[in-house]
């Protein structure tokens, strides 16, 4: 085990993937000499050269379109989108080409493209630097969507994403880039659990708290706080947003009967809506109260000074937990 930040774990994952398969090439803005604005690709240019760590012109549609062409040629491109809010110029290439070419050709043309997206808010950034666009990609058939929450998962699932013959949109929570955790760098990929599995991060019995990305940490804090109150929360890190591992989710819901789904992204037609609709379909008879969503508001990401009023935090999670448990709010006494 090696202690690494999430950022370094991602870098290690890229490095290992490039060693494992010389068809893996990295493309993006500023990923070469600079090592990316988050330094995820730091050192890779020196190690693998400019033919495999490619600084591109400043055009996201161009980058993803170029990745498609490289995939046609048998490469496994890994694209870095500089920030979440800059993926939209590439939306057409992702939705109409990356996601559909395998289907269009009945599997004759593979699109083993990984699109890494530094993701989500809470870092006091300027507009477009804190977006949570995952639902767009979850809604897009033909893509897989991964969201990581810790260094170990980051290292493993990035390698899995790159090794996958399917296109993967890979979300990296920016505000965790400097969070540390143990990573088993030597663990063979073959022994790893499949990329699509969720993880019960903490077992519990009273209610299930489902989330992903940076909010997994908040959910664990909520579970701690709830425990002080005698409430046992089960926390699930979805890890894969498409497909969602509904077997694990349903098993938990059947046990607890109460559910909160949380994410930073806005609410309307977001991932939480999907998870709740699916839970309701599968576990209706087990539900003891209405599953609730705790999400960003349905607003554009607000200016940095106001983001704390947008992002779900510990208190909002606990408030929802209280509500699914039909308890008065533990903080305020309201709702009794």
């Amino acid at each position: 085990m090696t202690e690494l930040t999430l950022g370094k774990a991602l870098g290690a994952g890229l490095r290992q993937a490039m060693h494992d398969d010389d068809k893996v090439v990295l493309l993006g803005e500023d990923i070469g000499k600079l090592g990316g604005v988050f330094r995820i690709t730091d050192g890779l240019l020196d190690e693998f050269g400019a033919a495999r760590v490619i600084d591109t012109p400043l055009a996201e549609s161009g980058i993803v379109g170029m990745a498609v062409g490289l995939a046609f040629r048998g490469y496994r491109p890994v694209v870095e989108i500089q920030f979440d809010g800059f993926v939209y110029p590439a939306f057409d290439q992702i939705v109409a080409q990356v996601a559909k070419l395998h289907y269009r050709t009945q599997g004759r043309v593979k699109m083993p493209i990984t699109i890494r997206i530094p993701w989500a808010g809470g870092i006091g950034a300027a507009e477009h630097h804190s977006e949570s666009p995952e639902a767009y990609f979850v809604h897009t058939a033909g893509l897989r969507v991964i969201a990581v929450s810790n260094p170990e998962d980051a290292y493993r699932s990035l390698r899995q994403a790159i090794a996958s013959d399917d296109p993967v949109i890979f979300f990296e929570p920016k505000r965790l880039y400097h969070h540390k955790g143990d990573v088993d760098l030597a663990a063979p990929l073959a022994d790893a659990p499949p990329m699509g599995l969720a993880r019960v991060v903490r077992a519990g019995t009273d209610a299930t708290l489902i989330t992903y990305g940076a909010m997994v940490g908040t959910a664990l804090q909520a579970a701690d706080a709830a425990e002080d109150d005698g409430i046992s929360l089960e926390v699930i890190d979805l890890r894969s947003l498409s497909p969602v591992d509904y077997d694990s989710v349903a098993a938990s819901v059947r046990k607890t009967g109460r559910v909160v789904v949380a994410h930073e992204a806005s609410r309307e037609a977001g991932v939480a809506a999907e998870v709740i609709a699916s839970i309701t379909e599968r576990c209706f008879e087990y539900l003891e109260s209405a599953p609730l969503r705790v999400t960003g508001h349905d607003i554009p990401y607000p200016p940095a000074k106001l983001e704390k009023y947008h992002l779900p935090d510990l208190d909002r999670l606990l408030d929802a937990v209280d509500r699914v448990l039909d308890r008065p709010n533990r903080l305020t006494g309201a709702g009794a």
Partner: protein
Amino acid sequence: MSPQITPIADTAQDLELSERILAPDGSRVANPLLDPFVADVDPAQLRSLLRDMVILRRIDAEGVALQRQGQLGLWAPCQGQEATQIGTARAIAPEDYVFPSYRETGVIYARGAQPGDYVRMWRGEEGAAYDPAALGVAPLQIIIGAQTLHAVGYAIGIQHDGADEVAVTYFGDGATSQGDVNEAMIFAASYQAPVVFVCQNNHWAISEPVAVQSQYPIAGRAPGFGIPSVRVDGNDVLACMAAMRWALEHARSGKGPAYIEAVTYRMGPHTTADDPTRYRDEAELESWRRRDPIARVEAHLRAAGELTQEHLAETQAAADAVAKEMRAACLGMVTRPPLAVFDGVYAEPHTGLERQRDEYAAYLASFESEV
């Protein structure tokens, strides 16, 4: 401040502003730029180019007929563009790779398409018309301009592989307005990628004349990006072949991308769903009929005494045979079973979709058990 390129006054002026080898009347024009690239083309070769153009026109007519008869959902005719498509595509090496739009029937023909390949997609049977690897041609692309970036990416792959192949991409005059096509030029120039851009300027993007996209010669854009370009008479099969050989040689020899604007004309409707009488003059069409790419080569060969009745008959027979095979392939197509809608979405198992497939299979099975 910077020198302004002259805008094109009208479509008639267009061809005068482009390079040619064969004039509309079939006479040969000396062209120091292009001639060297087709010095080897003897009458036999020219007849073979003519033959391909005639067959292509026949395939195209069959496509229209099949659509009119309800056998195809849609067809995008390429009548009038035979010289551009055959002339350029015949120059491409088998190991090169082509990224076309949806109108390149002649290109896939030249790459060895099988009879069913022309119609499979338009009939709505499959997403791709043919096996890309078999033809060295990416699936027909409907999203305007998207394929140009793919060609550049592929070309960068060629470069990394140290291969001497070339990626070729075809697109229309309308497509030149799309961001993607411009980004493709920028990426290609930045990496000096071995890619050839072929703009088929057929004067129309559905109902919009090319002047909506550009009042200046489109080929004039490439040099600003650092890409050498040539503007050829797209109804002159020799000029098209010569330009393409130049461009391929340029790209193949490591000099980076090259750009061709082939000035041609879409004689038919945009697609079988289109009614061009709503937006274009019969007179314009008529003027282009006089520049027919096939008639031009016939006139040239005939004047040289190199075209016999036998040649013509053989060509017509070959064309009819292809059309017949195409029709038979079309009518013989068997639609895949319902559950095929789930095939090929992912390369690897996807639990969500597998469940949907199972549910739908059970649902469909419930009808069968009914009986």
